[in-house]
């Protein structure tokens, strides 16, 4: 028998065929080479839509304005105007339906983000006034005395 030498090769080809058949069923049809070429554009196209449909959580100041104009107006007159509402009030998501009430971050750490004094030359941080948290009423929330919506009205005694 001259052809017995090729038997193993037939087995190998058989296995390759099985892999290709599985591939035809398993790999989604939109998987292929897309715009950026094979090196950077080898992917499943449907994934782009999946990422576009990811839920947006932070809505931005404009979202708060319609229902809370007074709050926006008050803070706009202060240096805290630059801070987004959601930075302290948390992401709006679908507020007021979900969540119905936003959890406000009233902790000392939130204020210390900017108001821990770091006198760094060449950095904008040096221009922000701060306090030593270990000396200035340690353990008490800053908002007990200071109103973030009106910080320059001074600390209440």
């Amino acid at each position, binding site marked *: *028998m001259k052809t*017995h*030498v090729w*038997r*193993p*090769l037939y*087995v*190998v080809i058989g296995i390759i065929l099985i892999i290709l058949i599985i*591939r035809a069923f*398993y790999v989604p049809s939109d998987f292929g080479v897309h715009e950026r070429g094979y090196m950077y554009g080898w992917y499943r196209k449907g994934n782009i839509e999946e990422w576009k449909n990811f839920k947006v959580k932070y809505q931005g100041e404009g979202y708060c304005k319609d229902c809370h104009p007074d709050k926006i107006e008050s803070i706009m007159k202060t240096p805290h105007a630059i801070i987004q509402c959601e930075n302290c009030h948390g992401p709006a998501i679908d507020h007021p339906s979900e969540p119905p009430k936003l959890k406000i971050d009233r902790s000392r750490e939130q204020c210390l983000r900017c108001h821990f004094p770091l006198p760094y030359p060449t950095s904008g941080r040096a221009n922000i006034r701060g306090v030593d948290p270990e000396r200035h009423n340690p353990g008490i929330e800053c908002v007990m005395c200071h109103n973030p919506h009106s910080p320059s009205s001074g600390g209440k005694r």
Partner: protein
Amino acid sequence: MPTMMSSLLLNLIVHGEEWTAKELFVYPNEYIYWSIQIVMYPFMTGLVAGAFVLSSLYHVFGVKQLKEMARFALVFSFALLFCAPLPILLHLQHPLRGFHVLMTPHFTSAIAAFGIVFFSYGAIVASELWFLYRRHFVDVSLSLKNKPDKSLSEWIRFLIFCSLTLGVYDVSEDALKRDERAIKILAGLGIPVACFLHGYAGFIFGSVKANALWMTPLMPVIFIMSAIVSGIALCILTYIVTMELRKLFVTRKKTPHQLYQSREEIKSVELNVIKMTSRYLLFFLIAAISLELLDLVFRGYTAVKSWDVLRSVIYGKDFTNIFILQYGVGNLIPFLLFLTPGLTIRRVVLGVILVLFGVFMMRWNVVIGGQAFSLTFSGYMHYHLPIIPHNLETFKEGFAGAASIFLLPFLLFWLMSKIFPVFSYKTEH
């Protein structure tokens, strides 16, 4: 630490955090992601490639003294081949998706070569084994076929051996000669594929420009050289162990195959084969160490941006791992053991164990060493290998997982020797 405990409870210890300790300035997302299993993988594939090259030395280059070793090495290479993908499966965060590399391979990545290389290498080794043992399969299946009352285990044995013949029952002189020629071609074809099998592993590291220690064109060559070293060393070791076991059986008159009449005959054959093989071991050992030292010298001489942090890692933190363990214990001492006159089996055993340790340390120093410094070049990461596992992750990526993978090929080899008997003159070509 309380924060660590609460994070553990919430399953928020990120992959790598448990065994990484950061020092100085390290990016927040940097951890030792490629740990012990990535050290094991090139180690195992190195053993595979090395064992195969050793087997081919007989089949292709006709080095007659290696005849016994050749058959042994081929079966062991096959057993190792099944164990080699296991470190990867234990490392992958989604092991069940591992076959995606066969479904949508991205060939700009060295890892994508895994599917093709492993498969073709497996095909070559399996085919070569088929040709080598074909007569044995035919003999066993025919003898079992003619037996009237078969027990269950004999039925299973019959089915296995029947299917292994692939429907070919011609064992004439002509057919066997054709088998020999096929073996020779496959062994010759297999050498570059075995080199590729391990070269691509070296390329995986050498092509990562982001890692200052890994990035060098020498990496694939260094890996291949040390792979061959480890393969040869492992074959010598297992060969000696099996020969010792056979001597034990002969003394106690338990062996089914009365091949050698006496202990002395076994002993003389052994030493000859081993002396021959260890010469090749030394040659590749010298090649491997030369390339590594060359790489080190070049780095020190050119002193690019990363040299400061690399120097502090190589000559500082990893000094013991590199110079004492890998170069000293793993290279220099075996060198002396093999070269000083009056070679004994005991010295060979010690030598090959140290060589295997040295090759393992080389993989360790590349993989872990490459992650010992931060991408910032101003920070370090220390690796603490999990010894006693307390969850799945510390088992998979810890000492327990690595040890199981190291021991598995021996178990598989024993199982395979039931189908591919390694020491039987009756089936020999």
